[in-house]
C-alpha cells in the first residue's frame, strides 16, 4: 500500500484524538463507522500492527448502543491505537476481522459470547467461554447485577456424612 497509515486513518475515521500515553496507556483513539472497519484493519495490518484485543462496552444505558473497542499495537516501537465502533442497535452486527487477523476469530467469539454482538461472515460464531446452551450474554449490564440478587443465603447446608 502506498498510502501511509496516518493519512489512511484520517481518510477513514470519523474522529480522531491524541491521548496522553503516560496517563491512559494508548496513543490515539479513533471513532469509526462499521463500513470502514475492514479497510482500516487492513491498513493497520499492512503497516505491521498487531491486533491486541477486541472488546465491547455496553453503553446501551447512555447511548442505546454497544461500543466495540479494537486495540492495535506495533511490536517494534509501541504505538497503541484504539478504535471505537458504535454498533447499530437494530442489527447488533459488525463485520468480522478474522480473515485479516486470524486472532480476531476468538476475540470476536468472546465478544459475541459476552455481549451478544454478532459478526457477519464470521467462520464459527459460537459460544466460547460459556456453555453452548447458555441463554444469556454475561457481560451485558442488565444481566447478573449483584444488587438484583434475591435475598436469602444458602448457607448452613449439610454436607453428606453418610
Amino acid at each position, binding site marked *: 500500500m502506498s498510502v501511509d497509515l496516518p493519512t489512511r486513518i484520517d481518510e477513514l475515521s470519523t474522529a480522531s484524538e491524541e491521548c496522553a500515553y503516560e496517563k491512559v496507556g494508548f496513543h490515539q483513539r479513533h471513532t469509526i463507522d462499521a463500513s470502514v472497519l475492514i479497510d482500516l484493519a487492513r491498513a493497520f495490518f499492512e503497516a505491521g500492527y498487531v491486533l491486541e484485543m477486541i472488546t465491547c462496552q455496553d453503553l446501551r444505558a447512555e447511548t442505546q448502543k454497544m461500543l466495540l473497542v479494537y486495540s492495535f499495537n506495533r511490536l517494534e516501537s509501541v504505538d497503541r491505537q484504539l478504535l471505537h465502533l458504535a454498533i447499530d442497535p437494530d442489527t447488533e452486527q459488525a463485520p468480522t476481522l478474522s480473515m485479516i487477523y486470524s486472532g480476531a476469530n476468538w476475540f470476536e467469539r468472546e465478544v459475541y459470547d459476552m455481549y451478544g454482538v454478532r459478526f457477519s461472515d464470521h467462520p464459527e460464531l459460537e459460544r466460547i*467461554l460459556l456453555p453452548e446452551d447458555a441463554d444469556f450474554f454475561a457481560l451485558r449490564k442488565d*444481566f447478573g447485577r449483584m444488587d*438484583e440478587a434475591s435475598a436469602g443465603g444458602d448457607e448452613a*447446608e449439610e*454436607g*453428606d*456424612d*453418610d
Partner: protein
Amino acid sequence: MGKVDRKDGVVRLPLVNPANTPVRDPLGDEAMVDPAVVRLAVLDDLLNLGRANSLWPLTFGLACCAIEMMAAGASKYDMDRFGAGVFRPSARQADVMILAGTISKKMSPVIRQLWDQMPSPKWAIAMGGCTIDGGPFKYPNQYAIEEGADKIVPVDIYIPGCPPRPEALIAGILQLKEKVKAGRRFEG
C-alpha cells in the same frame, strides 16, 4: 526446607459448628451376634484397611488448587508415602476424586460423568474454598460457577483454604483414611 518444628501443637480453628469429628466405626458400636457376620466383618475390615491405604487419586485438576495437589504429590510432600501418590489418568482405575479448583457451570456435567465412570467404592475430596461452597468466586447473582462440589458428587472430605497447603491435602487424605477404615458403606 529442612528446618522443621517437631512439636506437636496443632492449631485448630474454633468452628461455629464443631461437628468435624471423625465418623465412628459402625462395627464397633453394635453387638454382633451371628459369627458368620463377624467373620465377614473381619474380611471387610481387612479390605477396608487395603482400601484406606491405597487411595489412588484421579489425575484431574480444575484450577489453582490443582497446583497444590501436584505439589503434594511432588518430592517435598510426597503423598506416595501413604499410598496415595499413584495418580491414575483413567477414571476407571481411580479411587478418590480430588476436586481441586473452581467448578464452573460448564465443567460440572463433566465432573459428574467422571464420577460415574469411577468404580465403587469411591470417595471425593473437596479441596479449597471453591469446591466447598464457591469460595472467593461466589457473590450474589453470579452465573459462572457451581457453588460447592457437593451439588454434583457426594463429598467425603472438605479442605478449606485458598488454596490449601499441601499439608492440608495430606491431612485430608489421612482423615479420609480414617473414614474408609471405619467402613463407610458404599452406595451403588
